[in-house]
């Protein structure tokens, strides 16, 4: 808009345009009189039927009014055919009216939908005087631009000429009722004037909605998965959950610091044990009686097997002893090995434990150094056999083809003339398992017992004996003999009518240590149950209740 508000646009028009307008207004008033709209004649046409004439007469008067109220500008008429949403209309119109004209907003009735099919108004004919007037007084291009910029787009008073459209009654009767909604059914976010609510375009209007409601996903319904459980089933579920939760929890690793009396008591018990073990060793009085030979018949079986070996028979010794059990097992191992060496057996050592070959060498050189075969190194130590059960299986299948630590160093232990006859595991006259645990001995028994016609014998620590007894008492007997622990060593020496001073001293120490342990446990239990009766101990507790927190010596003294 080039003109300022408050200025009358009519005053700024050029003189020629003012004259033109004055003349145009006069011509229009004259043409209103001469060019009346076509009104159907009330006289019936001769060719028309009577019923059509009656209809024409009935609606002739009402049809004239819409044409009279039709706006002069064609764009206004076209604009009426467009459906205008309510908020857009009010908003857009209010903005334009505020900028263009501060006058109150004219009341414009929205056209009915049925009016879109109304006939187009006839094209107005340009009068001849106007054509003659335009040709000589046609302004130049610059003037046209100036004029067009001075003409307001919205003339004041034009809206007053707009009259609300009226539909004829017959057309109103034809309108379908209830089909078209009274309001715009589009969602508010789809309307052109709607503002974006979220996202980077928030606050802008006229944008495509990012998430129209039509494509918004509906949250799926939640179906109940609750099972119908009985009380008994619920108790079982609760118990199982508690069991699993307790299993996942780490154990409480709280270390209760022992007070001085408790530490003193622990120290006294340790000292008592040490003194009980040292007393027979220092005394050397041979105080403890040796066990009967009939008490361990499995030891007698080993003795008989070794006694039956021919001189120079190859004997395989699976040496799977761990260093921690060296002190306990060396006496019984030395007893059996010395018997084998006295029978001039060709000893072949192999181990599935990395420390086994070294311990075997230690026993041979510490306990059996006086044996001629040891001094002459007339034995074979194949070394470590890595691979566990698979390696043992391979060794039992093909001893010469197995890779042991000695062959890995480039040496060939099978080149010894005494081992020329060995091609398989069954060529050994006897297989002896020296083991500290039951698992290693069990591997040898399960993998090799079927392929050894002469059977297996075991020399173990005391802890492995109970687990090997089922193989000893089985039928067929997969373990031909068993000697274990210090007791087995003493029995075996008795069988050989020998008495080793060291093993005898150990047996005495074992006897006194055993007595001290039994006494300490008995006194400890007696102290807790009889002497140390605290008030809370008299209360009856559930057997499944958690154990009490460890009480210290000072608490007990209180």
């Amino acid at each position: 808009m080039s003109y300022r508000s408050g200025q009358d646009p009519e005053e700024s028009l050029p003189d020629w345009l003012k004259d033109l307008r004055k003349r145009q207004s006069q011509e229009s008033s004259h043409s209103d009189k001469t060019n009346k709209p076509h009104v159907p004649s009330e006289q019936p046409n001769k060719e028309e039927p009577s019923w059509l004439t009656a209809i024409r007469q009935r609606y002739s008067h009402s049809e004239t009014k819409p044409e009279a109220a039709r706006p002069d500008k064609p764009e206004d008429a076209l604009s009426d055919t467009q459906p205008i949403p309510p908020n857009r209309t009010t908003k857009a119109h209010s903005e334009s009216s505020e900028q263009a004209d501060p006058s109150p907003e004219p009341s414009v009735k929205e056209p009915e939908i049925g009016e879109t099919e109304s006939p187009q108004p006839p094209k107005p004919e340009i009068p001849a005087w106007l054509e003659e007037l335009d040709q000589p007084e046609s302004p130049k291009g610059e003037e046209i631009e100036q004029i067009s910029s001075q003409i307001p787009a919205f003339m004041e008073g034009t809206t007053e000429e707009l009259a609300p459209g009226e539909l004829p009654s017959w057309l109103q009767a034809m309108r379908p009722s209830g089909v078209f909604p009274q309001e715009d059914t589009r969602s508010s976010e789809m309307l052109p004037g709607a503002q974006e609510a979220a996202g980077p375009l928030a606050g802008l209007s006229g944008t495509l909605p990012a998430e129209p409601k039509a494509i918004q996903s509906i949250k799926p319904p939640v179906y109940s998965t609750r099972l119908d459980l009985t009380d008994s089933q619920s108790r079982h579920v609760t118990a199982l959950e508690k069991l699993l939760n307790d299993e996942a929890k780490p154990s409480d690793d709280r270390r209760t610091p022992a007070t001085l009396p408790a530490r003193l008591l622990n120290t006294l018990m340790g000292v008592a044990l040490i003194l009980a073990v040292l007393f027979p060793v220092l005394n050397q009085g041979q105080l403890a009686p040796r066990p009967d030979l009939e008490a361990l018949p499995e030891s007698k079986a080993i003795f008989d097997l070794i006694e039956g070996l021919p001189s120079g028979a190859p004997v395989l010794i699976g040496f799977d002893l761990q260093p921690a059990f060296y002190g306990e097992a060396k006496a019984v191992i030395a007893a059996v090995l010395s018997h084998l060496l006295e029978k001039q057996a060709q000893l072949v050592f192999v181990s599935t434990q990395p420390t086994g070959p070294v311990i075997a060498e230690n026993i041979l050189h510490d306990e059996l150094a006086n044996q001629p075969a040891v001094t002459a190194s007339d034995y074979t130590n194949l070394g470590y056999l890595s691979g566990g059960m698979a390696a043992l299986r391979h060794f039992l299948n093909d001893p010469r083809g197995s890779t042991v630590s000695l062959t890995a160093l480039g040496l060939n232990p099978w080149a010894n003339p005494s081992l020329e006859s060995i091609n398989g595991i069954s060529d050994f006259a006897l297989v002896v398992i020296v083991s500290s645990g039951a698992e290693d001995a069990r591997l040898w028994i399960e993998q090799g017992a079927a392929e050894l016609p002469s059977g297996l014998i075991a020399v173990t620590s005391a802890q492995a004996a109970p687990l090997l007894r089922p193989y000893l008492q089985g039928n067929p007997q997969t373990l031909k003999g068993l000697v274990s622990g210090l007791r087995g060593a003493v029995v075996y020496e008795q069988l050989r009518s020998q008495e080793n001073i060291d093993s005898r001293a150990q047996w005495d120490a074992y006897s006194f240590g055993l007595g001290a342990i039994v006494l300490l446990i008995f006194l400890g239990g007696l102290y807790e149950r009889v002497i140390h009766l605290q008030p809370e101990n008299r209360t009856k507790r559930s057997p499944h209740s958690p154990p009490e927190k460890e009480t210290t010596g000072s608490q007990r003294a209180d």
Partner: protein
Amino acid sequence: MNLRLRTPVSAAVAIALGFIVLTSLVLPGLAALRNQILNWAMLLTAIALLLGLENLFQVHLQKVRTGDKATFSLILLVAMIATFIVTLWEGSQGQLANWIFSNIQLPVETSLMAVLAISLTLAAARIMQQRKDRMSLVFLVTLFVLLLSAGPLFGIEFPMFTKTIGPYVNNFLSVGALRGLLIGVSLGTLATGLRILLGSDRPYGS
């Protein structure tokens, strides 16, 4: 190799080798192939032992760097390197290597076992304080019976325990329970072997 192919390939290799070893027990013609496979397993186990040693070295080296109980880790690293070099130089039967084993490792492990004996004695003496229930009493009575039957106490033998009750417990009660245990272990081993052969259990990789 694509990571997705690793699991099927390893499963196929494990199953195939397992079937070969298993059928070789029935078909003697496959014995040579079985022995070759087992020999590979032995070599792989030795390599795994070296890898474990390397991992132990790395862990304690990291502790030395971060200062977390660095003293003990440093002692371990020095001892490990020294023993490894000496054993590699002399062999496992060498004089210095044998001295290290006989005068360091053997006494340490034997002493730990002796300390364990004293600790178990203290724990048994306090068992009635820790757990006052029926099973603790049963455990304590069984312990007394086995200790009394293990030998003479202070040079005094109790024939009722050493010749009657002790052998009965060892030859009947203990053997019966352990046979059930061994049967369970055997069934578990059988089931584990079948699961590996069928590919439902893959302990060699997920």
